[in-house]
């Protein structure tokens, strides 16, 4: 027993030396992670889309149409950057990516309005850019409804009604919207809480592949096994221990930063969420072992690993829900650890689900260790015989 620990210690010592000898190991895990963290936390500092540029095609050119423009300009979510009297000019501006929507005020709007002929406003918005288009669309609807509300208010005021009663007449049904666990509709919380663990997991997987594959490539695997006393399990434990510690610490940093410092909401338990993150990181490392075990050539394993890892972000379903995917692809998404982490995150952080809700996904993450154990004989053979091409 003591011997095993001694050998683990030897491998560990050897690994620490290797880690310091090449900048890649520490730069990749810590540098890339911190840079991405900084990037995503500063990119969406406002949290929600504001001041989306749009245009008004004012064919009417009257005081009323100018008031519509003013009202548009006064709202925080859109920025009226172009007032023109030519539709094609506005369309070209849209095709050049300057604006996301066009409101057309028809000729004779004011005179028709005054004679109760119900003139029509035309709202155009782009679907080629989803967030910008939707924001502008919502605002145009609001202004179009306000325009009609404002006119009703004028008429009712003339009839001598107090304002609060007028409002109830104008808006007899109100929608009371509750955005659960993210009441501000904040994009940073929404994106970062899945993307950053995903990046960390991907770094963990790629460096696991690299740490093992580089032994094969530089043909140092015999030296490694010798340090481990010829025992595969001891060799793996000693090698992966320092990396696992680094990633788990980074995972804890990530968790503390989100939920304790930046104050992202957690409706369930902090511990289970953190535990899910740690399990996820280890599952990604296990996938790294699987890939290098199946393809014991470093470059192939890394190429496949990168292709597989990047798919995780889309397959996890946090931007586009899984229910809209092709059924076969929906099934495939279970092969991505990030999918299971995301479901744990939804249960724990957003829903505050009962303690057992996240259990199936935690078990699924544990299940990723099984293929890692299955490739052990193959990887062991590769380490002993070095019978795979080096490049």
């Amino acid at each position: 027993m003591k011997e095993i620990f001694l050998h683990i210690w030897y491998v560990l010592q050897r690994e620490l030396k290797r880690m310091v000898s090449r900048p890649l190991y520490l730069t990749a895990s810590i540098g890339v992670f911190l840079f991405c963290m900084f990037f995503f936390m500063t990119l969406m500092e406002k949290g929600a889309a504001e001041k989306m540029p749009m245009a008004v095609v004012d064919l009417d050119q009257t005081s009323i149409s100018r008031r519509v423009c003013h009202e548009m300009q006064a709202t925080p979510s859109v920025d009226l950057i172009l007032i023109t009297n030519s539709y094609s000019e506005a369309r070209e501006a849209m095709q050049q990516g300057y604006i996301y929507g066009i409101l057309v005020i028809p000729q004779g709007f004011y005179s028709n309005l005054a004679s109760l002929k119900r003139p029509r406003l035309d709202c155009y918005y782009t679907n080629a850019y989803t967030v910008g288009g939707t924001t502008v669309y919502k605002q145009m609807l609001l202004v179009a409804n306000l325009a009609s509300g404002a006119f009703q208010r004028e008429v009712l005021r003339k009839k001598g009604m107090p304002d609060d009663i007028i409002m109830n007449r104008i808006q007899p049904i109100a929608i009371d919207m509750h955005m659960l666990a993210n009441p501000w509709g904040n994009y940073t919380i929404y994106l970062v809480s899945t993307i950053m663990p995903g990046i960390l997991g991907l770094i963990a997987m790629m460096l696991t592949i690299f740490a093992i594959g580089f032994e094969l490539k530089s043909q140092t695997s015999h030296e490694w096994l010798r340090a481990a006393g010829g025992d595969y399990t001891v060799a793996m434990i000693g090698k992966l221990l320092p990396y696992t510690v680094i990633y788990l610490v980074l995972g804890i940093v990530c968790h503390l930063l989100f939920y304790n410092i930046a104050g992202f909401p957690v409706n369930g338990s902090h511990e289970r969420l953190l535990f899910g993150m740690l399990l996820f990181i280890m599952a990604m490392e296990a996938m790294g072992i699987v890939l290098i075990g199946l393809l014991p050539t470093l470059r192939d394993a890394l190429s496949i690993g990168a292709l597989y890892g990047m798919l995780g972000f889309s397959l996890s379903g946090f931007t586009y829900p899984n229910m809209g995917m092709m059924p076969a692809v929906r099934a495939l998404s279970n092969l991505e650890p990030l999918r299971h982490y995301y479901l744990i995150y939804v249960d724990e952080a957003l829903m505050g689900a009962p303690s057992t809700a996240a259990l199936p996904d935690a078990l699924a993450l544990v299940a990723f260790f099984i293929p890692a154990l299955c490739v052990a004989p193959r990887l062991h053979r590769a380490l002993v015989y070095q019978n795979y091409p080096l490049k």
Partner: protein
Amino acid sequence: MNITRHLYHFWLQFKESGQVFWHELYTIFRDPGVCVIFFVGTLAYPFLYKAMYWNEQITNIPVAVVDLSNSPESRAFLHQWSAAPEVRLTHTCSCMAEAEQLLRNQKVHGIIYFPHDFASQLADPLGKATVSLFCDMSSFLYMKGIALSCNQLVMEKMKNIQIDRYEYMGLGKEMAWALVQEAPYTETALFAPTGGYGSFLIPAVLVMILHQTLFFGICMLAGTVREERTEIYRIPGRKRGYSALRTIFGRAAAYFLLYYALAAILLGFLPWLFDLPHIGAIGDILRFNVPFILSVIFMSICVGFFIRNRESGLVLLFSTSLIFLFVAGISWPKEMVPEGWKYFSYIIPYTWAAHGFIHINSMGASLWATRHEYIALWGLTGVYAVLAIIMFIVAGIRRERKESHLAALEEAAHIGGSFDMVEYFEHSSQPISEDLH
């Protein structure tokens, strides 16, 4: 006479860059790792993404109903709402706790709640009825689907109620109608009438796939050259000398040949195959692809110059995909990207290429309307090409100097009769890139 000699000399040099070109093509096809990235990556990924965004829109989002008012009005509301494609009313609950339980277990992604007084408030000519919506925020698309469909229905309903109330006030029916429908409006979604998520994202993803596979592939190839202890700025097979222009343009031509064809397939053919918006002129797309591919090639050659072995590139650079996607302002609007990051995005070809391609392909802009992006890409091509040439020349000169220094030492060692020194220097000679750091 002199001119013909110059021409002949020039021809010889040109032939050498052809040699680099063939050698590079040979290297690419001999290298399974690069082939996976170049061909499997570019051709398989688009299909995977298409399969992922299969339904384009999220329809039939399961929603629970808590109807405490239990009135004909609320039932009529639900009846109409259940006809909306976005939602499906799967569960009817007697109390909020039950519905919350369903939401927690992810059986439903939203709850609609009618309070006790819903009907009575509607009946009261001065009342205000409330509908409460609770949305699962695990994906913004759930919230969008539930909220927009409910909003539209409420707007519709409101008009009828307003008319009733104005009639109750004693206004004539005509007058009431005129008041309510004061400013009717039409709404038209341009460029992707289905409003699908795939129609919006897949064009940007296609550009990203080309950009990143080319970037990774070139960095991998550069790392391999460095690993094999040959110098990237040297014509393959030579032991001495350097030639920045010939090696850079020879290589670039090889990558361009492959990627121009791949780009034509991905950006010209796949939008049609996938039923994505494709209203752009194909000629404009093909012309736009030229500076796009070239700028990515020269940027990658510049970055690849600093990569010392084949794998480190892949390990370090994969995270750039997400950063490039977000900083370009595709899914997150470009107006919201902070100033500092915006300048950073300008030096990345992806930013210009993705916007340009979306403008031409999805929005039907002409190449003239896309001139900013087009010119910017040519600008990046020029800057990166010049940068690559300068780096290659500097590295070549340094190496040359080191070699002549080494040769002098060798000579000195010969005189001294010892060969150890030569061996010592050869082993201690570091890769050139370190000097440049």
